[in-house]
C-alpha cells in the first residue's frame, strides 16, 4: 500500500518509548512526551525522519501508549492530553 514504518525503526521507536517511560514519575503531557521521543529518535544517528515518516511515527507512539494502557501500565486522563504511570505491580 502506501508508506509504512520500516520494521527496524518500529523496534527503535518501541525501545525509545519504553526508555522514556521508565524515567517518568507523575502526570505527563502526551504531546510533549511524543515530542521527546521524536527528538530522541533524531538524536540517534541513522534515523532520517522525513515529514511523511514523522506523521506516521507520531501516531505510532500513541499506539504504544494505548497498548500500555490496555495492559494497565499507564492510565489516560479523560481529556486525552495527559497520562500517568500506574502503580506498578502485577
Amino acid at each position: 500500500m502506501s508508506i509504512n514504518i520500516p520494521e527496524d525503526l518500529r523496534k527503535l521507536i518501541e525501545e525509545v518509548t519504553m526508555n522514556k517511560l521508565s524515567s517518568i514519575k507523575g502526570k505527563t503531557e502526551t504531546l510533549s512526551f511524543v515530542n521527546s521521543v521524536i527528538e530522541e529518535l533524531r538524536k540517534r544517528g541513522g534515523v532520517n525522519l522525513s515529514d511523511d515518516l514523522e506523521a506516521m511515527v507520531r501516531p505510532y507512539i500513541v499506539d504504544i501508549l494505548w497498548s500500555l494502557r490496555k495492559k494497565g501500565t499507564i492510565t489516560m486522563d479523560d481529556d486525552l492530553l495527559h497520562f500517568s504511570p500506574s502503580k506498578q505491580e502485577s
Partner: protein
Amino acid sequence: MSSLEIDLRRKDRYEDIIRSISEYGSSVKEAVFENLPDELMVPYQRVRELYIQETTRSKGRIDVNSLIQLYMNVPKTEELLRYLLLTTVLFMGFRNLRNEVIYRVIRRNYDMISHLISRPEYSLINDVSMKLLNDYEGEGIKGEDIQEVSNAVHGFVYGLRKLTKAYGTTLLRWIPKFRDMNDFEKALTMFYPPRANERRKRAIRTFIRWVSHETNLPVALGIISRGGGHRRYTMIADVYSTMVTIRSGAFLALNNDHAMKILNKILVNKDGGGVTIKVDEVKGGLVRAVGRLSNDPITYERGGAFRIGHEYCSRLKCSECPLNKVCMKFTWVNIK
C-alpha cells in the same frame, strides 16, 4: 482557526455531523445517473417514478412481483441494468481508475456497447475493449493494459451468458429475488474477472449501491422491501469517506476505545505537523460503524465519500463545504 471544544458527553453534536453528511448525500445524485445515454435516461426516470407511485399508493409496502411486472413494461430497463453492471465491471479494467472518465467513455461508445449488451458474444470482446481503451487513454490517462480491459469485458460477457443461458433469466428478474445483501454480493461475483482484491469488492458494492436504494435505481426490491435491508450495505470505505468521517469528527459519536485512541492521536499531534491515519486502521471499526450508525450507509457514503471528500475535504475547501458549520475540522489529519 476556531478552537476545538471536544465534549464527548454531547453525543448529539457528533450525531449532527453524521446527519449532515447523510442529508447532503440524499440531496446529490450519483454521477453515473447524470451521465447516462439519452436512450437509457428514460427507463431510469420511469422506473423511479413507478417505484414512488407504487410505494405511495400502498403506503410504503412493496409488492415485489407486481412492481417488477411494471418495470418490465418499461422499454430498455434490462439494457439500463446491463449498462450499469458493465460500468462497474469496467472499474476493474483500468489501473488508474477515474470513475467519471469511465462514465464518459462508455456513454460515448454506447452504439457499440448496446450491441454487446443485447447480444453478449465473445467475438465482440476484442473490438469493444480496444475502443474503450483508446478512448480512455485519449482522455490523457496513461499506463493501461489491454489485457486488463479485455479481462473485464470478458467477465461481463461470461456472467451475462451464464445468467441468460444457464439460468434462463434476466437481470431485471434476477436482482429483485435477493433478500440478503451478502448473498447478492456473492452472486454478483460471476460478472467480474476472478480476482480477490479490494478493487473487485469496490466494483461490486458500487453496483449494489446503485440498484439497492430508492434514491438511485430501486430494482433490488427483495433487499429494499425487507424493512430497509439496504441498511446492511457495507460501505466501501475508501480514502475519501475515511477522510470525511475522521476529519469532521463524525466518528466521535461512537465514543468507544477505538474512537478515543484515534482522537488521542489526532489531539496530541495538532501542533506537531501532520498526522497520518491509515484507512485500514479505521475502515471497519470506525468508518463503516459510523455508516451503520447513520441508518443509511448508502446515502452516507454518497454524501461523505464521493462528494464532500472528493470536492471539499481533500482540497481543504472548508469555507464552501456543506459541513462547514458542524465539522470539527481535524484538517491536519492525512489519510493514506
